[in-house]
């Protein structure tokens, strides 16, 4: 290269680098997402999935001055479960069925909408929902309810490639936000109510070519298969419908798995039913499993363990340890060593009667209830898929709860027919004639929850397992949680209130009635020097910031 050409090249390089740095979400930026708290680069805010923001503009003293800045109304009446990404001043969300919308996060105005033509063959169990996106480079990734993975140009909203992950007519669906690790996009499949055989799979981000696949229900040649009898494993469930986490130092990605199939008739599938209701630690390069921990062996209660794995580094018995914190749908709060999967501690955080306690290895000591008597927690669990939060400042783990909520479970024989429901249940609320509170409230009148369950947020100390505080709600709580470096905790609820609490004490500091169920998690970001907090409620996304 001669001198003048070299000068030109360097000049061009100097011009391009700032753009490239701003525009491209590199794997390195994802690794250090916490270093750019103005953005929200992954579903859970960072690979550790703490939903903890380092932004400090909104604090305990001024949170009362939050005001609504804009509203985005989704063109859908389906449940609105999306967590936005915010990347260098642009917000990306999904709306049902599988649209991607690029939004100006200062005004709420829309740059573009990408519409994916969802196949009518899709049959997600519980609503045509989507929980969000992943990004790498200039490419967004969306998992669709008809079980495809689609790559979309983040600048102009055009599809770059689409691959079929699984067969929607067999009951496979995808509702989760993908997780990008290095150059791969990792997803899991829903379908646990249709007797699918679950899996987690990774795709090359540039091409969509499948890199690996891990079956959550082992076949006869795979370890763990002896936890099944006969051919039960073929429809064994173990769906994966929430986004995992990643520890770059250990090079392990963690994913929770769902119920075994059929959901409620455990007599039809003897054995522990691995790897249902478990957390799996996988090598993100190969998909090989390093360890697993099963929370609810041989589960007859639909206690999906798909909760987002929360990674925290903390002292344990006086020594630094890499922990995994898990408020499980089965009502127990677990602390695991995420390097080995070793069970460190666990105790109930809501009323539990399906097990008396956990043994030294974390295995539940089951106490099945007599026929006709309620089991606690009920079908929806002590919590469910709602993202919890961990604040390194307070050292507390925060989880949304369903309190004093039970179900009378009855298993009935289920016949497997591909693509039809395979649940094997005849379940009822403890009050005759009343419907148990479902996964989402159907309207603005709260008719049943007081006697059938209430809710709230609890702050748990991982060191002791004890509740530090509880913020009680009249209704069950379906909201995700955000904490901040100013000791604020943001949480919604199905009553439609969006609340800011003191993360140290649980004291209510601010609330706003948004008029619709809040079932996703709030996020925070900063644009042009202003910190925002956003959350979906009903069919809209609301953005708040401090009054000028």
């Amino acid at each position, binding site marked *: 290269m001669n001198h003048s050409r070299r000068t030109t090249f360097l000049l061009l390089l100097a011009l391009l680098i700032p753009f490239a740095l701003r525009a491209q979400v590199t794997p390195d930026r994802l690794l250090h997402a916490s270093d750019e708290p103005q953005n929200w680069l992954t579903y859970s805010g960072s690979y550790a999935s703490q939903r903890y923001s380092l932004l400090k503009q909104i604090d305990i003293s001024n949170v009362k001055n939050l005001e609504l800045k804009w509203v985005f109304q989704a063109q859908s009446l389906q449940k609105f479960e999306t967590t936005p990404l915010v990347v260098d001043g642009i917000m990306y969300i999904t709306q049902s069925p599988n649209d991607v919308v690029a939004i100006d996060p200062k005004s709420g105005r829309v740059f573009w909408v990408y519409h994916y033509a969802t196949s009518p063959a899709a049959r997600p*169990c*519980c*609503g045509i929902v989507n929980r969000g996106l992943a990004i790498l480079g200039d490419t967004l990734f969306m998992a669709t309810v008809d079980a495809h993975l689609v790559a979309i140009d983040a600048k102009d909203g055009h599809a770059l490639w689409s691959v079929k992950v699984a067969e929607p007519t067999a009951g496979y669906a995808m509702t989760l936000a993908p997780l990008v690790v290095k150059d791969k996009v990792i997803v899991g499949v*829903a379908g*646990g*109510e249709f007797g699918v055989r679950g899996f987690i799979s990774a795709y090359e981000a540039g091409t969509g070519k499948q890199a690996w696949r891990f079956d959550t229900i082992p076949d006869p040649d795979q370890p763990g298969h002896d936890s099944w009898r006969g051919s039960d494993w073929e429809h064994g469930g173990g*769906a994966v*419908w929430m986004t995992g986490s990643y520890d770059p130092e250990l090079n392990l990605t963690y994913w929770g798995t*769902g*119920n075994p199939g059929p*959901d*409620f008739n455990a007599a039809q599938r003897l054995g522990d039913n691995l790897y249902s209701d478990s957390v799996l630690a996988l090598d993100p390069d190969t998909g090989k499993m390093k360890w697993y921990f099963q929370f609810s062996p041989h589960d007859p209660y*639909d206690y*999906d363990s798909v909760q987002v794995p929360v990674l925290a580094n903390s002292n344990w018995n006086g020594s630094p340890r890499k922990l995994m914190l898990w408020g499980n749908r089965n009502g127990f709060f677990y602390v695991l060593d995420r390097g080995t999967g070793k069970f460190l501690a666990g105790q109930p955080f809501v009323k539990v009667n399906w097990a008396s306690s956990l043994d030294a290895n974390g295995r539940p000591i089951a106490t099945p209830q007599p026929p006709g008597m309620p089991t606690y927690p009920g*079908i*929806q669990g002590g919590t*469910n*898929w709602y993202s919890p939060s961990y604040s390194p400042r307070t050292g507390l783990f925060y989880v949304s709860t369903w309190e004093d909520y039970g179900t*009378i479970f*009855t298993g*009935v024989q*289920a*016949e497997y*027919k591909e693509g*039809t*429901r395979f*649940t*094997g*249940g*005849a*379940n*009822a609320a403890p*009050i*005759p*004639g*009343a419907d*148990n509170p*479902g*996964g989402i409230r159907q309207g*603005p*009148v*709260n*008719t*049943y*929850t*007081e*006697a*059938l369950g209430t809710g709230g947020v609890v702050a748990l100390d991982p060191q002791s397992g004890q509740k530090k505080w509880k913020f*009680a*709600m*009249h*209704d069950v709580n379906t909201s995700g949680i955000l904490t901040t470096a100013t000791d604020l905790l943001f949480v919604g*609820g199905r*009553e439609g*209130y969006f609340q800011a609490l003191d993360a140290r004490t649980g004291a209510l500091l601010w*609330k706003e009635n948004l008029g619709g169920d809040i079932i996703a998690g709030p996020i925070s970001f900063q644009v042009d020097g202003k910190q925002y907090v956003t959350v979906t409620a009903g069919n809209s996304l609301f953005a708040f910031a401090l009054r000028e």
Partner: protein
Amino acid sequence: MHAQGQDRAPEYFQTDIQYGAQIFATQCTACHGTSGDQIPGVNFRAGQFKRVVSDNDLRATITNGVPGTAMQPFAFGASELTGIVSYLRNMNSFDARGMMLGNAARGQALFAGAGNCASCHAVNGKGPRVAPDLGDIGTLRTAELLHRTLVDPAASMLPANRPVRAVTRDGKVINGRRLNEDTYTVQLIDEQERLVSLTKADLREFTVLKTTPMPSYKDKLSAQELADLEAYLLSLKGVK
């Protein structure tokens, strides 16, 4: 996953089965026959269906019909569907000979007269608002639940309808029937039939009562009278 799985009801109740048997006799037998086996490939007594697995499948097939066949859509309410499904699931063991058929006209007379129901309940706006208007109760409550409410009202009362008592900071007492409640507020209709919304932080006392002013009719009405009253209540399907 996060929806409730439900293949079959945990229990089918005699009152619902009877109600379903009556509907079946008038609406379904022309095609399916009294034994439910007149359509090839379908035999209700034997539990044989073409495309139905769960109770919800049954409800959907009845409601939507089956395109391209003689199975037309039926606009049944929820309690009627519960009755029909309960009957279809129990057709092989149900003995219609012991069935006590209620008479809705006699039930209506009881409602206004000896039962004294009309002193608290309105029907489509005719009557007081102290207790819920029952004008569409036949679509809201199953036959079984209506029966239970009549014989044991306190145990069967749904949480939403419970009486509440509130005392404001300045000592004003408000009694009423709860319409809605959340963490911070409660909405009710008070004894003067006013809609009242209260903020809990403004109250000195707020109590949700587990009792009900409604008496049990277990010993007040005969079995036939109860059946008549239930038949009347089931016939109340709202203003069309």
